[in-house]
């Protein structure tokens, strides 16, 4: 009698244990992100009726696009074992240079709208990428730590953007620019989302299917082994920062179109949020580990949380607190995960 009872208890316990193990395994395999996403969706769905509607979710995707672009760029820097703190500045520089050039071109030749838009975008993106190029030269050639290099360039770029604009927004871009790249859509997809999708697919191919992609992982995984294997490690490091700058620049241009003005103070939260998106997505801060599709999900997650908090009427200042807390929680969870992995090996 008592035997049976204890047997049942034991069975119950073993069932609980095995389901816990399954959870553990899922955690180890997938990382924190799926769990965080699930929790966020449940919490916000409970807090607001409007959250789980098609329109709102599309909204989340559109709002997350800019962060997704920057976070994917940031991933390249992180993969090689560095990071880029100047991504926010790159957005600002792109916006200010792009808007200024576009407005000037539009004033000079009001009838050639397409040309003005093209000139503005080229100038803006080139200005943004040039910061990535300088970061890359500093890190790859002069061995400056990525922290100092990108922090320094963040200051340089922000200063230039403020100096050029005197701190005021840049107006005078053709209205079509905002209409197409900010609010327009292609086959029903908002233009920024379409552009981001295109770039993400392209970079997904680069990262997973090309030699260069593998070299990023190799340099972050073991830079000495990469060198012994005949890989040009300096070039690879350099390109990581150029890619990062390029993605941030595209995000900057798209955001400029959305705002219809060139602003020196956009993107201030980008360094933190982009690194947060990557880390939550399981990109290792030591380099060598990270998957692009997860980073996109990570950016979506942060957008989802921000959107949910807006709907739940959480004050915007408090939202900043939440993002910081989430980042730290993700890192703690990842450490915990590594410990589980270490234990499972024995």
């Amino acid at each position, binding site marked *: 009698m008592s035997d049976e009872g204890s047997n049942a208890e034991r069975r119950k316990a073993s069932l609980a244990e095995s389901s816990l193990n399954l959870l553990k395994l899922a955690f180890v395999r997938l990382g924190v992100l799926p769990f965080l996403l699930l929790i966020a969706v449940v919490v916000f769905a409970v807090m607001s009726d409007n959250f789980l509607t098609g329109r709102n979710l599309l909204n989340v995707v559109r709002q997350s696009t800019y962060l997704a672009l920057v976070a994917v760029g940031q991933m390249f820097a992180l993969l090689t074992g560095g990071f880029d703190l100047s991504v926010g500045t790159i957005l600002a520089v792109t916006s200010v240079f792009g808007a200024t050039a576009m407005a000037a071109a539009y004033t000079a030749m009001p009838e050639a709208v397409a040309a003005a838009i093209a000139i503005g975008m080229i100038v803006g993106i080139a200005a943004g990428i040039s910061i990535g190029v300088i970061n890359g030269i500093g890190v790859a050639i002069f061995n400056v730590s990525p922290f100092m290099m990108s922090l320094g360039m963040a200051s340089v770029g922000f200063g230039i953007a403020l100096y050029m604009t005197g701190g005021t927004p840049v107006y005078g871009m053709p209205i079509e620019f905002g209409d197409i790249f900010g609010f327009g859509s292609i086959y029903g997809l908002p233009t920024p989302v379409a552009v981001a999708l295109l770039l993400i697919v392209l970079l997904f191919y680069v990262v997973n299917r*090309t030699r260069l992609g*593998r070299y990023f*992982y*190799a340099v972050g*995984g*073991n830079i000495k082994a990469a060198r*012994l*294997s005949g890989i040009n490690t300096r070039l690879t490091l350099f390109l990581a920062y150029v890619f990062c700058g390029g993605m941030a620049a595209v995000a900057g241009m798209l955001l400029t179109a959305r705002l219809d003005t060139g602003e020196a103070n956009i993107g201030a939260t980008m360094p933190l949020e982009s690194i947060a998106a990557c880390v939550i997505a399981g990109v*290792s801060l030591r380099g060598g580990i990270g998957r692009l599709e997860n980073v996109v999900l990570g950016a979506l997650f942060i957008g989802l949380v921000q959107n949910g908090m807006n709907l739940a009427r959480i004050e915007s200042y408090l939202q900043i607190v939440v993002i910081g807390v989430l980042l730290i929680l993700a890192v703690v969870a990842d450490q915990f995960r590594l410990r589980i992995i270490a234990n499972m090996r024995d």
Partner: protein
Amino acid sequence: MKADLADDENSGRLPNAGSPPLLTLEGITKTYSGAKALDGVDFDVRPGEVHVLFGENGAGKSTLISIVAGAIRPDAGRLLFRGEPVDIFSVQHARSLGISAVFQEFSLVPQLSIEENLFLGSEETTFGVLDKSATRKRASELLDQLGFSLRATQRVAYLSRAEQQMVEIAKAFRADLSVLILDEPTASLTDKETDQLFALIDQLRSQGVGIIYITHRINEIRKIGDRITVLRDGCAVGTVGADISETDLVGMMTGRIIDQIFPSVRYRPRERVIETRGLATADGAIKDISLHVAKGEIVGLAGLVGSGKSDIARACFGLIPVSSGSVHFEGVETTGKSPRAMLDAGFFYVPSDRREEGLMMMRCARESIALPALSTPEFSKGFALRRRAESERANELAKKLNLQPRNIERTVEHFSGGNQQKILLAKSLTRKVKLFVFDEPTVGVDVGTRVAIYRFIGNLCENGAAVLLISSDMPEILHLTRRVYVMCRGALTAELTGDQITQENVLRHCFEREAA
């Protein structure tokens, strides 16, 4: 003076022979990821003796002294300190017992001054505030007592290696000392400084301090050693008096049953693949190196750790800038070419430290294996990777090398040490290679894998490749090679062929023999 010293030694040696040991180790065992670094080692130190630990690189000396110093803990066995069992759980604990170690790798903070380093962790304070004048006074006293001509306020970063060594030794003296561990302390000292150190050791001996002394230099054993314990493959082979002959000592150090371990490799040297003429590097690690390796032969490059063996290969491979001399690969001068160019020419360098330079530990085995060959047409077409070809080839190589478990998608870190070494070797088979350079290919691997690696190297040679085997492992050199270059302090000291390759001959040219 000389007679005095000799007297001291004699009086120091004999009366202590029967005295109870300061420290006793019984059946100490330590295992690192499956490989036994120490296997049931017994060892003891008596007051007032210099007990020398002798053995090849990797025999377990460092592990043993790390256990005594509290840096690592044994898996089995026990320690007795003054007859009482102790469990030395940390370096601090060892210090509090009076056990101090001076390791080869210095534990000094370069940015701090000598005095700050000396008392790091046990600073002089008054009411919680650093008492700088007291620190300086004690530091100066300590340095004076030891007879070191160093200023206590000097920054460690500006000191020479020998001076840093002195600070390191002085650090061991800051507390009461009962057991002092010295790990090759004279490696970076001049003759004069060495004499100073020996005088100091004599002084300590007369105070009843027990000294554990690691050295490769037979002269030093003669000068200051009382007893010698020889370690081989993690086992204590025996403890003998310091008057043992050199031949016997070397025999104890290296002797092992090796008939089955080493394959017999046909020796048919053909044309030369690589040749260096008067090669020297900008950092001065090697000077005036002229050697050559031909197809169909395994050439050994012997010497102690730090003698510059690896630097030769690294300079030829384009990893270290060459300052003078030249490298010729298949008759074409390739001095200063990049690793990529050398790889493409058919030169493959397998580094000694797989974790540091060989593998991407957190990535899967496949990616590490394919890495050197990604630019070849087999693995990529234009910029695009040929992922199926990559998987197939990696699988094939894993099978060939008997990787366990045979899962190329497994993270490298999760393989055992021996299997990680196989992944490292697999890398070299992904390309067309004419010259393989193996740098310490069997460090930290078990006997089974060792055998597999020797077969592997032998096969490469019989298939017509040139092989340069850089090794500190004597049996490897003796049994696998028919031609050996021996190095000492960055220069070639001998080229031995055929019957000349004996333990005695190789060792004689490895070890420095100070003019006595």
